[in-house]
């Protein structure tokens, strides 16, 4: 049964009356006629039950971690403990205005969170200001630029990224007014050091790396990379999207990185919320300390406070109207306190165990690993290049067919480098049985590929809709409901 649009449930004059505030004694302060709205906005007019039922039913159309295995590579779809939400939603926290006197309890959490993140990353300073990974990247590259500028080194405006980098890396470099220089990877997924050596120079602002890379393998020669870039006068940026893989095992600061962003919504399990909010806390080594984005949680006269412009005069500035995604940071704090020191290490260990187990079982089942000579990190890539030729199916077909087995599809077509790829990240919170069920589904899909590839091509079959026409979506653009005239 198709769920109608909320607008289709609307009837003129219908109201969820108990949500209305009392009628004010006087009308709105006399609004000059030319500033007044002529016709009411076309918002739905529905009852409270209609709202509850509609959005409850819509929610049921989603796959989610709470309801399905969700091995979406590069996204770390691990269990989001309910406690993180419950205690972040305490009314004293949710009711506090950001510009009201500084709340000591809340700020204590933020301060300790910064300290924990410093320790985990091996950095000297952390700012919780960026509101997602991409904004963390922005802050990082902006700090790198500020660093060079502060040294009057104005020529450094090139950011090096490996070919396989996430799209946000080059996009961020561009947002920071840098030019992007891509360098290739070799057959084992490692950075081509020669190409790197040739790329660096006096224009090099820095390099952005994910390690383990987006290819799901650890960059073993990271020491070398750091040396080359540093010697050329550039700085090293660590894209922390894959921090889950190495938590407590090796610290970006120890590998030579000067700046890192973390996706707290990945590694530290804050909810993905159907697309956000995230939090992209940044950590820096000594050279970038003066440039951290504000506000920072600090201590003053024995109390906690927000450090601002006057306290961090070299800051690259503010990235949000208030305190970044403060409530997301609070959720990450709660999670980290429950994990504790030992729990951090175990995250990496069991994420790696799950990924390597799945990789082995899938290759045993006949699937091809993109980097067969390598250990998986917390994720790995399967390439369907031969299947796609042999059976005329695509990675997308396999992804869609997986939905019919009650599994969210892995990331497809990223990184673009690997043809017909599936990037699979099980995370540490999934049980062996869940992984085995996934393997069973993949084996069954393999059989279907051989016997009845059309079943894949026309998948999914059991979802609320069949495969959607993306081309039509873009060509006959319908992105907002319009009231019938």
């Amino acid at each position: 049964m198709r769920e109608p649009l909320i607008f289709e449930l609307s009837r003129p004059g219908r109201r969820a009356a108990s949500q209305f505030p009392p009628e004010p004694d006087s009308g709105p302060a006399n609004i000059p006629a030319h500033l007044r709205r002529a016709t009411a906005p076309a918002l739905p007019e529905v009852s409270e039950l209609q709202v509850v039922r509609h959005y409850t039913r819509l929610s049921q159309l989603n796959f989610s971690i709470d309801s399905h295995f969700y091995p979406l590579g590069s996204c770390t779809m691990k269990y989001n403990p309910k406690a993180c939400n419950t205690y972040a939603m305490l009314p004293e926290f949710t009711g506090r205005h950001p510009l009201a006197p500084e709340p000591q309890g809340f700020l204590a959490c933020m301060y300790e969170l910064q300290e924990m993140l410093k320790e985990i990353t091996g950095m000297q300073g952390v700012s919780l200001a960026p509101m997602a990974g991409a904004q963390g990247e922005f802050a990082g590259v902006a700090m790198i630029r500020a660093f060079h500028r502060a040294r009057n080194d104005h020529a450094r405006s090139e950011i090096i990224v490996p070919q396989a980098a996430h799209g946000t890396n080059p996009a961020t470099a561009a947002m920071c007014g840098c030019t992007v220089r891509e360098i290739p990877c070799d057959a084992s997924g490692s950075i081509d050091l020669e190409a790197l050596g040739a790329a660096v120079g006096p224009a090099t602002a820095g390099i952005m790396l994910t390690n383990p890379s987006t290819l799901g393998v650890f960059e073993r020669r990271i020491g070398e990379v750091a040396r080359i870039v540093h010697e050329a006068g550039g700085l090293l940026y660590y894209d922390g999207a894959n921090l889950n893989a190495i938590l407590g095992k090796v610290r970006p600061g120890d590998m030579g990185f000067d700046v890192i962003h973390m996706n707290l919504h990945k590694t530290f399990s804050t909810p993905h919320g159907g697309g956000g909010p995230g939090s992209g806390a940044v950590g820096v080594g000594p050279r970038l300390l003066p440039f951290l984005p504000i506000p920072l949680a600090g201590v003053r006269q024995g109390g906690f406070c927000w450090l601002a412009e006057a306290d961090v005069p070299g800051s690259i500035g503010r990235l949000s109207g208030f305190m970044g995604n403060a409530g997301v940071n609070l959720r990450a704090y709660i999670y980290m306190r429950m994990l504790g020191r030992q729990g951090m290490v175990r995250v990496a260990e069991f994420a790696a165990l799950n990924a390597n187990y799945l990789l082995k079982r899938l290759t045993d089942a006949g699937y091809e690993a993109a980097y067969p000579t390598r250990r998986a990190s917390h994720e790995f890539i399967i390439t369907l290049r031969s299947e796609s030729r042999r059976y005329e199916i695509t990675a997308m077909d396999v992804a869609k067919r997986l939905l019919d087995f009650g599994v969210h599809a892995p990331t497809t077509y990223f990184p673009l480098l690997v043809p017909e790829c599936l990037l699979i990240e099980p995370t540490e919170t999934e049980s062996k049985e869940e992984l085995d069920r996934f393997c069973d589904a993949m084996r069954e899909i393999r059989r279907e590929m051989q016997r009845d590839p059309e079943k894949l091509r026309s998948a999914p079959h059991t979802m609320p809709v069949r495969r959607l026409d993306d081309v039509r979506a873009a060509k006959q653009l319908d992105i907002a409901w319009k009231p019938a005239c």
Partner: protein
Amino acid sequence: MPFIPHTEADVSEMLSTIGARSIDELFEEIPAEFKGASLAGVPAARGEMEVARLLTERAAADGRLLNFIGAGAYEHHIPAPVWAIATRGEFYSAYTPYQAEASQGTLQLIYEYQSMICALTGMEAANASLYDGASALAEACLMAVRANRGSESRRILVPRTVNPTYLKVAQSIARNQGVEFEITEFERRSGRVDMGALRRARGGGPCTALVIQQPNFFGNLEEVDALTDWAHTHGALVIAVVNPTSLALYKPPGEWGGTNDGWRGADIVCGEGQPLGVPLACGGPYFGFMATRLSRVRQMPGRIVGRTLDAQGRPGFTLTLQPREQHIRRGKATSNICTNQGLLVTAATIYLSLLGPAGLGRVAAACAERTEALVRALSRIPGISPAFDSPRFHEAVLKLDRPAAPLLAALAGRGIAGGLDLAASHPELGHAMLVCATETKLDEDIESYARALRDLLSTCASR
């Protein structure tokens, strides 16, 4: 092992499948020289019970204040269904709807949200959210520079009636691309944009866009028609920064201007979505909204959901126009944004559905009325008077006969967050503070505030 399901038997079975002797072996590719940092600074694990107690104690330490601050984040009643539904696991723990067929719930909701933002703003195309209001303005400025192809300039005019933090954020983000912001003065009596100042700024060279905040930072209503027409006549796009609650009462940006030469309507509309069901929460997460004309949709950053058909011809929803985005266009994308503020959009969509046009209008009217009551009550106190004579929405600047900071600190001691001191951002106003009363404030709250303030003013000699 918190949140890890593996039994010892699982581990050994899995290792033997992998062909590894230990979990440590899985990390063998990491060079030994870098390994082995201790996490001594991270406290030991604590159970949920203990962490719950810690957080409860910290929350109690923060307590609750009677709040009269607005300045970009507004305390509205949040209907109970909003978060009861937004925190359902299927919304809360899903990600970006990349697999459309398994994400129709989130996708349809975003489509509905986009439609509501279009309805409120009077525009044709809205995105699925940006981080917050301030960063949305930054993105709007970058978009304006891209969109106004006719203009040579990267100069954007920003009157000082725009939220000063928004300006700072726009600067932090956009200056790396060489965008310049030209700040113009406001009229002292009305607390609105000074047209003369605008003209003078324009005299300094062409500009690509004008930012208009309505209601402005001081709560005053700008002459949006005149400003829009002026900008358009001078080849500048109009970036409207609006409060979504206010749009139930005030002319939507899509209808600004157009009375003489210039074309009708703002070109890019953005703002802070927090008033729509999102708690104040010490500063975030909120969400930014953005809308524009269909003709400019390809310049807009952020995700967009479209309605299409499935293989059987039934309607369904999917992400569309993705070639604007970083995962496709990389260095040439409209923005680097990836994760946005989906969960807050979920809350806002539910909020707007519950309130509807009449409810949102009632909220807006109640806020306006409450703020007038507050201004009246406080202005009766000797030494306090309204700073401006313009019509306003739900905020007001009050002039004081002494510095605001110590008064506000003393009020906080009595459990009242009395307003925002404007000394740092607008010193030209002398001693002044920005106050706000939403529909949540009862007569007795306003009286408590007035009583406390009168008391403080009479006991401390004015400086």
